[in-house]
């Protein structure tokens, strides 16, 4: 179920979409049988921002990881189509897929406390990304890393270069993560709950930086989150997922015209100032949504 013309991007010219996903399925074998975390997700993405919203267990993170090729080893991933710029990701040899990671598709993770290597300095970790994909000398690499740290608005990048991840705050750590993943100039960024582990005030700063970088570099963005309001203000389009399926897909501007009861339930959960608050609405899950 695809809305909008998949091969027309923002400037109106036709070319292969950045990302084309058709009937993506991710299944995990467990002791008690198979668990399908993602059950037939389909969408296309151009140079735009797509938000994927859902609760825990909806399969939104697994979708992102499947696109990156980061799903756990024993899982089974199938799709009619999983193409990046027209190239099939599933049939690609592993080494080629690895080259795409970091260079053309990047991912930022949720909590910098855990997603940064604790025994390597920040500078070295970012240099590592660079050296994996490009031939640069040590001095050149350091220069570019410092420039990147400045681009994510870290003041005194020379000092931060030599620090360890536990020596910086959460907000700065997330900015380091963004720098680390964007330094090779990827075209597509998947942000897996990038601000969920941060304080509310810091969230806005990080989102600003993300906004600026994505716009400046003309990147495609997939923003995975549980926060519908955040996603709709940040992205052009929103996919709502429940129990592994996409239950609704609409443009952010059309959020008020949502039709699926789950989406309506989510929207109702956000009380608006000035309206009658009692009783607070609670999501009433219907079993037919998980079919």
């Amino acid at each position, binding site marked *: 179920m695809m809305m909008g013309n998949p091969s027309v991007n923002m400037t109106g010219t036709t070319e292969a979409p950045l990302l084309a996903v058709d009937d993506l399925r991710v299944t995990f074998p467990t002791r008690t049988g198979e668990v399908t975390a993602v059950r037939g997700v389909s969408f296309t993405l151009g140079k735009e921002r797509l938000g994927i919203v859902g609760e825990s267990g909806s399969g939104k993170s697994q979708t992102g990881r499947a696109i990156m090729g980061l799903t756990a080893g024993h899982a089974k991933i199938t799709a009619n189509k999983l193409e990046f710029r027209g190239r099939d990701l599933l049939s690609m040899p592993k080494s080629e897929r*690895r080259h795409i990671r970091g260079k053309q598709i990047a991912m930022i993770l949720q909590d910098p406390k855990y997603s940064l290597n*604790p025994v390597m300095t920040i500078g070295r970790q970012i240099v590592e990304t660079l050296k*994996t994909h490009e031939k640069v000398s040590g001095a050149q690499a350091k220069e570019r890393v410092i420039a990147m740290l400045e681009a994510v608005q870290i003041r005194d990048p020379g000092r931060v270069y030599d620090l360890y991840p536990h020596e910086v705050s959460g907000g700065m750590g997330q900015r380091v993560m963004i720098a680390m993943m964007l330094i090779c100039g990827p075209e597509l960024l998947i942000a897996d709950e990038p601000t969920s582990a941060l304080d509310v005030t810091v969230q806005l700063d990080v989102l600003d930086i993300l906004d600026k970088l994505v716009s400046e570099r003309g990147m495609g963005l997939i923003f995975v989150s549980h926060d519908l309001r955040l996603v709709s203000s940040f992205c052009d389009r929103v996919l709502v997922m429940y129990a592994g399926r996409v239950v609704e897909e609409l443009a952010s501007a059309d959020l008020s015209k949502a039709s699926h009861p789950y989406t309506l339930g989510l929207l109702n959960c956000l009380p608006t100032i000035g309206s009658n608050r009692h009783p607070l609405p609670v999501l009433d899950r219907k079993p037919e949504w998980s079919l």
Partner: protein
Amino acid sequence: MTLPDVTTVTRRNRRRAPSIVKGTLRFLITAATTFLGLLAVTFFIGRVVPIDPALAIVGDRAPAHVVERVREELGLNLPLYHQFWIYIKQALTGDFGTSVLTTNPVMTDIARVFPATIELATIGTLIGAVIGVPLGVLAAVKRGSIADQIVRIIGLIGYSVPIFWLGLLSLVVFYAKLRWVAYPGRIDIAYEYTFTSVTGFFLVDAIWQGEWEVVWDLFRHIILPGCLLGYFSLAYISRMTRSFMLTELSQEYVVAARAKGLSETRIIWFHALRNAAVPLITVIALSYAGLLEGSVLTETIFSWPGLGLYITNSLQNADMNAVLGGTLVIGMVFVAINLFSDLLYRTLDPRTRR
């Protein structure tokens, strides 16, 4: 907006500096009380447990006046705490009494035999670490596979087999039947009196002196007991490596590293292992300490002239001073290694260092 982040962290660090002094003090006090406790235990075993400590030292066939003299020397007629005080003073000067068997001061005997045990334990730990760590990594990376099962079985047998029995059988196979290795002792009779050792570590000295024939002979002597201890060491080290690696490989930073496009090899050895190295180094240090215990029986089997053989020989000859002196030395080295591995952990983990 961003600046406060960096400076508040460094301000916090500067406030932490005086606690390093407090930490060192606490460390020293812990070490001192532990050593005191060791002395108390050996004192208790030597003086309180036997019915007549003097008899225990000189044996029950000694003439009465010798027993009486020993009793005077030991101050057995003094109250117990006074005896303990004298004991502590003697221990601090390195006086552990005289060996009944060799009539040397126990400390001299121990100083003579200790390097042999160190040499053996070092070879054993080297083998254990060099083989054990890669095996553990392999088992963790290929979890659930045949390789993993084999590594676990090797480890399991290492925990279950009596070391002296395995040593005995390996001697029969590799020495008696195959003549691949040399036995007994550290060095052949032919070289024993012509080779002079400066450090007490024969291998080091022989290589330093360029005496390659001697080095080969030493190698043939040390290889079997070294491998035996090495096997026990690697059973432990490979199991712990596997455990640590499994933990690290399930961490988020490994996912992030994959997202960066790093090769799996690089992630395993430079990211996961580098993180696992911190607790692993302490495991290796503890394994070294454990080999000191394993050497007691190993040296007996191989007639290796180290501290273990010294203790068991003294045991057979009811030489209590020697037994207790040796026990105390092993205990102190054990504690020292434990404290050292604590220190190592602190310096290696950047999260505790700064």
